[in-house]
């Protein structure tokens, strides 16, 4: 039995090493390939300063929408697969601490604002809807640690939360389809870019960033709340 295990481990080791060496051996990219040609077009077409956001929410919006579907399906899935399992035991309560509570109260508005800023300025500086939504949700998580998840959950209107879970992806998909009705290619930008580097400079990227931010804020909170209710089950 142990010999079989050792043989198994050695085979794994050899095959993994072979894979890594083969990949490493065949990839020799010269550094300094220079600037890709599409960059000039990118900047002028979307009006966004952040080129990554231009690609993520305009050029490759189609990928992003599928990614958002993956995220939404997963969030709904976490709720669905946890919902019919009442916690099999009551986990020990998180110990109360005044320090944690005070710092959570101080940090929560700050994190929320930071999240909104990251989402709203995603086309001008690094950040974007996903990072912003997560940062804002982390403020909520901090509160659940400080004053208890149930207390936080009680203050959130559950039906409207559940409605938003499907309404936001529906809105985003509809926004992607709308250009067809206007006679343009699907998933084209909704508004023309204004340029100039202001907050409304980049057509629809701001809108998408905000919608994704809210979606991610809710989604990651739902996931984390589910895990808090079922904490310590593994």
């Amino acid at each position, binding site marked *: 039995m142990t010999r079989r295990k050792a043989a198994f*481990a050695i085979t*794994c*080791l050899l095959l*993994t*090493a072979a*894979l*890594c060496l083969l*990949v*490493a051996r065949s*990839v020799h*990219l010269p*550094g*300094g*390939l*220079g*600037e*890709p040609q599409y*960059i000039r077009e*990118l*900047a002028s077409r979307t009006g966004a*300063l*952040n*080129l*990554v*956001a*231009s*690609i*993520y929410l305009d*050029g*490759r919006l189609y*990928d*992003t929408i*599928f*990614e958002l579907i*993956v*995220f939404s*399906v*997963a*969030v709904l*899935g*976490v709720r669905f*697969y*946890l919902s019919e*399992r009442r916690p*099999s035991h009551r986990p020990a309560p998180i110990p109360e601490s005044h320090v944690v509570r005070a710092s959570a109260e101080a940090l929560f508005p700050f994190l929320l604002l930071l999240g909104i800023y990251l989402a709203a300025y995603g086309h*001008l*500086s*690094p950040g*974007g809807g*996903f990072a912003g939504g997560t940062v804002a949700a982390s403020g909520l998580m901090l509160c659940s640690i400080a004053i208890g998840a149930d207390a936080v959950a009680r203050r959130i209107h559950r039906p409207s939360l559940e409605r938003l879970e499907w309404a936001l992806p529906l809105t985003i998909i509809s926004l992607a389809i709308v250009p067809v009705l206007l006679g343009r290619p699907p998933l084209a930008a909704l508004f023309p870019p204004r340029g100039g580097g202001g907050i409304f400079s980049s057509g629809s990227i701001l809108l998408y960033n905000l919608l994704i931010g809210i979606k991610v804020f809710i989604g990651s909170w739902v*996931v984390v709340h*589910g*895990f808090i209710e*079922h904490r310590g*089950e*593994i």
Partner: protein
Amino acid sequence: MSYSPSGIDAAIALLGIGILVLALRRDLILKLLGLGLINSSTILFLVSIRFTPDAAIPILPVRDAGIVADPLPQAVVLSAIVINFAILALALVFVMILVERYHTTDSERIESEVAAEQGGEG
């Protein structure tokens, strides 16, 4: 000439470690961590593959008309990170369901118990 590792080398090393952990550790949590490592390694690989040392970050305006780093791999990597998170959350929920049923996270023990159940049905 002295050798200095690039991001690609680091990514491939991480990939190897991740695969070994996925294959050899029996605990499901560690398997998932190994999978996370594999996913991270592909992300590092993508970010490194067109890396140019003296390029500027892909946010305009670019200082002194230098070249800009390729934003495309960076944009697609964002999708990959989110997808990996989504899948991990569901995998953890499934591990919870398995633990509730079999009281263990040892993959080989779960496998044996599942096989025994199937045998029992026949």
